[in-house]
Every structure is written in structure tokens, then in C-alpha cells.
């Protein structure tokens, strides 16, 4: 109850009025899940499920997507000479609505599929949805994973506190040192108007790729750290996403909670429902729709639609190529294997950078302008004019990459905590020194807007 109260206060601190929306979602899914569980016929189960999905997506659509779709439709109809002007809502998007809506929906789906029993106590379920460390920017927890932890008694050990403290510090470093300093390089470029110089646009794209990673990974890490300190194990949302060579692996490691949600609750059901379509086509369609939803989940803008399409196409291209290239260039020597992996990772990293350029652009037009700049107006000589940007990017990215390499080599997120005490002490000192000296707070987490 104390945690539930704390979570409510935490959410109300942003805007107490939207607390009612959060509780609407909680009550709806709590009741629907109970209804599904006790329903005597499949028809009634489906009815409760439909009620939950309609209610949740209705709220999401109303608060997040209504204005976008209406204004897009108005503009489209305007082009063909039809006047259409329904009122716009112009309301701010409730904090974390996409996160908690998907989380509550996953609970109802799991109850419908019989994977879990509904929560006995309302307060347990309310805490599952509103648990403050991950309420506003994820990870989108699964009821199977978090709900049993809420209902079971928890043990807070010294090891939990040690790991939690480490995660909180490292998350803070990622946010206030890396992400916030990178925003100084990124924001002015995306706020400027065309023509864009290629080298500047490319630097901003690189910087933003790391900024969004550090920002979101930082938040998730802090959330996990706080959870650990309270005896909860919150799922990891990122797992070395830059050490991959294809779209599928990337989405297995980037925003894991969303990609796995989409896989389990959209992609697989879609595959199932498209079984009448023969061959690989149904896989492509299911992937494309799923990735489009991933894009749209981030927000109501054409750049996010484009982002989803980009990744849908990237996935399909990967599947098409996979069958042809699976035994292509298999090196026997370990060094050559590693070098080949590094090269492929580097090439794929640029695909990620391109997608992030789409993601961050204010409009598809800006993305087009920047891409044109990179391709046709690169002007490498201008590199010297952007020395500060390069310096900030390098200084912010290097420690993050170093830690990622350490994790990758050891295959352990807590590799640092296995080191000798004095080595750990040095790492802690470096992190704390970095936070207090170069910490540049004041910027909101990017994912708060979603």
C-alpha cells in the first residue's frame, strides 16, 4: 500500500488530473481480467477482452493520436478540395500513457490466454500498473514477471542494494553526463533550418543515436536500480544493442520490453490470423504491420510512421537475405571471425543511425533535407568548424562504449561488480566524479513524451 501511495504521489506530482486516467485503465483491466477468468463461455471472455482493448486503445487514441489523425485527414481532404474541420482536442499527452496502457493490456491478454491467474487483490494489480520506477518510461513489464514479485514477500539483501546502487549510479551517468551533454550537439542542428551541411547532419545523427540510447537506457537502468533496492527485479530493456549485425538481433536488444510485447501480442496473433496466405508473404505482412505499430507507438507523427516502415522493410530485407547469405564468408580463424563481425556491426550501426535520423527529425522534409546534405553536400572540410561537437560527442560516448565492451566481453551486466574492490572503487569514483562534474541536468527524459 505504501508503494502504491508513493506511486500515486509520484504520478500526481506531474499532473494530478491524469491520475484518474491511470486509475480508469487499472480498474478497467482489473475488472475485465476478473470477468475473463470467471466467464463461463468463450464468447463472454472475448467480450471482456474486447472491452479492455477498446477502453485502453480508446483512451490512447483519444489522448495521443486523435489530433494527429484528424489534422492529417483534414490536410488530405483539403488537397482534394473537401473542406473538413472537426475540432482538435489540443490536450497534453498524459505522462507514460503508452507504457502503462500496454502493460495493463498485456495483463488482460495473459489472463485471456490462461497464462496467469488474475490478481487477487486490487492493490497488487494497481501497484503492478503504477509501480513508480517504471511507470512513466518503462520498461513495459509483464504480469507474469512483476505481479508474483508484488504478491510474494521480498528480501532486501546487501547484494541487492549493491547492485541497485551501481545501476542507479550508472543510469544517472548515462543520463546526466552522456545524454544531456549530447543534446547540446543534437538540439541546435535539428532546430536549424535547411540547407544542412552533410558533416554536421551526420555528426548530429551519430550523437542522437547515442543520446537516445543513453537517455532511455539510463532511465531503464535507474528504474531497475531503484527496483533492486526495494527487492524487485525489473526486466532489462537494453542488452548491448550496438553489438548486432541485423534488424532482428537489434530489436531483440533495443527497447526489449516493447519489441517483445509487439512480438507476443501482435506479431504472433497476426501470423496466426494470416494463415490463409501462403508462403513467406504472411510473415512479411505481419512483420511490416508490427514494426509500423512500433513506430506509431512512439507518437503521432509522420516521422514515427516512417521509422516503423523503415524497420519493417529492414526486417523483411534481412529475412530475404538471410536464406542467401547464411553461409557466406564463414571464417575459420577467430581473429578474422571477430573482424568480420566488427565490420558487419559497424555497417549495421549506420542503418541504426539512419533510422534515428528519421526518428529525431521534426518532419519527413527535414529528414530528406539532412539526408540530401549527407549525400550531396558532405563538405568534410567543415569538420574543423565543429570541433566542439566532435569533442563533446567523443567525450560522452567513449565511457559508454567502454562499459558496453566490458559487458560484451564478460557477457555479464554486473561485470564491474566482480572486479577487485579497489578496481570497483576506481569505477565508482569515476562515475561519481563524472556525474557531479559534467552532469548537465535539466533535460527531460526523451521517452517521457511517449
Amino acid at each position, binding site marked *: 500500500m505504501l508503494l502504491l501511495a508513493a506511486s500515486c504521489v509520484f504520478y500526481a506530482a506531474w499532473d494530478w488530473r491524469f491520475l484518474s486516467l491511470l486509475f480508469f485503465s487499472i480498474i478497467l483491466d482489473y475488472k475485465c481480467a476478473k470477468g475473463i477468468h470467471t466467464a463461463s463461455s468463450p464468447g463472454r471472455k472475448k467480450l471482456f477482452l474486447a472491452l479492455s482493448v477498446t477502453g485502453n486503445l480508446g483512451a490512447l487514441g483519444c489522448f495521443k493520436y486523435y489530433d494527429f489523425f484528424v489534422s492529417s485527414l483534414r490536410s488530405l481532404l483539403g488537397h482534394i478540395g473537401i473542406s473538413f474541420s472537426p475540432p482538435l482536442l489540443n490536450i497534453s499527452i498524459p505522462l507514460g500513457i503508452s507504457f502503462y496502457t500496454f502493460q495493463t493490456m498485456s495483463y488482460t491478454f495473459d489472463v485471456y490466454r490462461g497464462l496467469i491467474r488474475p490478481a487477487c487483490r486490487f492493490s497488487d494489480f494497481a501497484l503492478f500498473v503504477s509501480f513508480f520506477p517504471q511507470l512513466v518510461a518503462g520498461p513495459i513489464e509483464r504480469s507474469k514477471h512483476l505481479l508474483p514479485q508484488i504478491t510474494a514477500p521480498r528480501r532486501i539483501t*546487501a547484494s541487492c542494494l*549493491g547492485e541497485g546502487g551501481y545501476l542507479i549510479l550508472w543510469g544517472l551517468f548515462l543520463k546526466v553526463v552522456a545524454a544531456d551533454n549530447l543534446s547540446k550537439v543534437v538540439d541546435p542542428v535539428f532546430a536549424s533550418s535547411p540547407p544542412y551541411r552533410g558533416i554536421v547532419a551526420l555528426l548530429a545523427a551519430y550523437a542522437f543515436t547515442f543520446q537516445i540510447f543513453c537517455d532511455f537506457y539510463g532511465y531503464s537502468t535507474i528504474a531497475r536500480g531503484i527496483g533492486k533496492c526495494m527487492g524487485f527485479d525489473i526486466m532489462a530493456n537494453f542488452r548491448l544493442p550496438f553489438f548486432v549485425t541485423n534488424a532482428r538481433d537489434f530489436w531483440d536488444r533495443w527497447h526489449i520490453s516493447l519489441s517483445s510485447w509487439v512480438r507476443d501480442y501482435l506479431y504472433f496473433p497476426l501470423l496466426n490470423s494470416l494463415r490463409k496466405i501462403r508462403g513467406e508473404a504472411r510473415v512479411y505482412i505481419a512483420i511490416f504491420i508490427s514494426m509500423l505499430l512500433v513506430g506509431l507507438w512512439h507518437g503521432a507523427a509522420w516521422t514515427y510512421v516512417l521509422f516503423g516502415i523503415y524497420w519493417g522493410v529492414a526486417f523483411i530485407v534481412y529475412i530475404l537475405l538471410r536464406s542467401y547469405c547464411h553461409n557466406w564468408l564463414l571464417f575459420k580463424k577467430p581473429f578474422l571471425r571477430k573482424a568480420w563481425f566488427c565490420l558487419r556491426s559497424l555497417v549495421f550501426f549506420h542503418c541504426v543511425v539512419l533510422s534515428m535520423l528519421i526518428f529525431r527529425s521534426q518532419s519527413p522534409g527535414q529528414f530528406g533535407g539532412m539526408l540530401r546534405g549527407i549525400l550531396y553536400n558532405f563538405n568534410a572540410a567543415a569538420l574543423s568548424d565543429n570541433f566542439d561537437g566532435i569533442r563533446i560527442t567523443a567525450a560522452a560516448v567513449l565511457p559508454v562504449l567502454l562499459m558496453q565492451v566490458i559487458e560484451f566481453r564478460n557477457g555479464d551486466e554486473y561485470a564491474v561488480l566482480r572486479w577487485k*574492490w*579497489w578496481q*570497483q*572503487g*576506481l569505477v*565508482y*569514483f569515476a562515475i*561519481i*566524479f563524472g556525474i*557531479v*562534474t*559534467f*552532469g*548537465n*541536468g*535539466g533535460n527531460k527524459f526523451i521517452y517521457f513524451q511517449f
Partner: protein
Amino acid sequence: MLLFGKRNIYILSGVLFVFSQLLCLKMAAVTQPGSKQVTYYKREWCRTVRGMKVPPGRKLVFFMGSSQTMAGLVPAVFDKENGGFTCSYNLALPATRLAPSYFMLKDYLRNNPSPDYIIIRLEPGGFNGEVFSDYSLLGAGIAEAVQYAVLSRDSLVFLDYLVPSRLFWPEVKQYITGKFLRLMPERIKELYRDGYRKRYSGVSYPYDWEAAYDAGYLHPELSRKENMAFVRRNRGYFFLFELSARGRSMPEGYSPRRIPRENLGWDEKDCAFLGKFLELTLKNNIKLILIPGYGMKQGRDAGDTRMKNVPASWLKIRAEFQNVYFPEGELEYKLYSPALFSDPRHLNYRGACSYTRDVAREFRNITGLQ
């Protein structure tokens, strides 16, 4: 080794952190520019001076404001111009506005009799965010830093104050890069020279960076006592920017680039310290004399409106505070030729003497002291 078990890690990181901060302080003490040291020592003077003695029959006058006042008003010349009726001190601080001046005056008044007059150059638009620059935090007390953080709604201001590695990072960086190149202390002078060379390599006038180091800055290699003696001897006047232009003056015909500034009025919400400063002077029966600033003749045209709205603001202030005075009638920027400037914004010693004489004349007109 496991004397304290797991706690060793936290103890080690804590000790290293404290040590690093002390090291940063030490590095900053070596490489910080003279202008920062001036701020420290002037503020320390205000805090430590006790029972200020003024020769009988003389009026105690303080000059307050920014670096232009610091480089523009010479106490010795001012007193001489006033026929020995005054005893003046230049308490203006570089790169800061009114807020630190308010706290300096408060510190001074704690242990000393009130000055009779304060001559201050007030600028419109000087009370926005830049008030709380790193210079404002130099030598500040905790309460002062908290007020800056609250007023600027930025808790990082307070963190800057608390953590030396934040506040002095440019100096620390300079020290570290210098240290890699050659051992201290011979390297100090070269660090300064390198700094000047870099800073002024793109200016459109010939800059004498070689001479700048020896030009009257406080010297980091001197002890605190020696530097404080320097502050007392000059009564706060510094040739801070002397010799920055080769030949100690800007080339004749130099035309500074004018940056159009928004002519902001006094907004009490933004200027939290203006009201406090005025109240403090009123409460302590100090007469406050507002003076216009100075600029370079060249390139000045009717479009430069920096002074246009100030008199109205001054009138507004005087309507509320009867201890505020300013020159009646002609109220304008004092304009001087480039030869009297040591850089585009600051007067050299000759220029400072001219400006001081002009200000002294206005001071006599206002006060009637002869």
C-alpha cells in the same frame, strides 16, 4: 585487504572523490585567470576588513559595478580631482552584475561604518540569467549560492558552487594539459600566454599576449597575503585589461562591432537583487549615485539605444528611493577615442583617468562637495 569488507569500495571512492576535489582547488588556484582572483580578493577584503578608518573630513566612496567600472575608475585620481574630500575604493567585479555587489556590501556593512556614497553603473538587462555566472559564485557564501539557485530556478547553480571540479573545470583542464607538457611552476606563465594567444588569435586588432601576463594581474605564484596587499594598495583598481592591445591602446580608427542589445527596463521580478540593494543602501543611509557607462566613439550612431530608456528607469527608481541620485540634464554615454581603450570594451589607464575625471565632476555637481 578486506578490512571493511564490501565497504572498502565506497570508502575508496569517497576518499578519491574528496581528494580529487582538493586537487581541483589546487589546480584552479594555479591556473585561474587574474580576473577570477580579483573577485576572490575583493570579496575577501569586504568580508575581513574591520572598523574601516577614513581620514577625518573625508567622505568614503565606493565604486561598484562590472569590469568596465573596475577598469574605468581610479580611486587615486578620483580623490585628487575632488580635492582630497573623498576616500574612494573600487569594489567593482569583473564579469558580474549587481547580485554579488549586494552581498559584498552586506558583508562590508557587518563590521564597518556605512560608506557615504556608492557610485554605481547600472545597466538595463543586467539582471537576467547571466547574473549567476561562475564569477558570481566565486567567494560567495552558502546562503548567497542558495539564493542564486532559487532565483535562477536551477539547482545546478548550487552544485557548481559546492563542487570545485565543476566550478573550475576550465582551469583544471588547462592545468592538466599544461602539466602534460611541462612541469610546474615554469609552465604557469606559458599557460597564460597560450590562453591569451588562443583567445585573441582571431581579433581584428594587434594583441600583445606576451605582455598581458605581466600587466598587473594578480599573480598566482604570489601568496594570498601579497595579493591582498596588492588589492589594498590599489584600492581595488586593476589594470585588468591593460596591454591587451599592443602599445596599451586600441589602434586609431578601430571600429568595434556593435552587438544590438535588447534595451530591457527594470523588471523587479527579474531584478531580485536590485530592490534588495536599494533597500540596503536606504537603510544604511548611503547615497547612491547612478552613472552612465562609456563606449568607443567610432561606429556609434543614433541607432545605438543602449542608454535610451535608462533615464526613465532611473526616474522610476528615484521615485521610490530618495537616496538615489544621478546627473541631471545631459545624461549620456561617455565616448572616448580608441586610443584610450585597451580592448574594445575597457579603458586603459589614460582612458580610466579621463573617465574618472568626468565622473568626479558629475559627482561634485550632484553632491555639492567642493
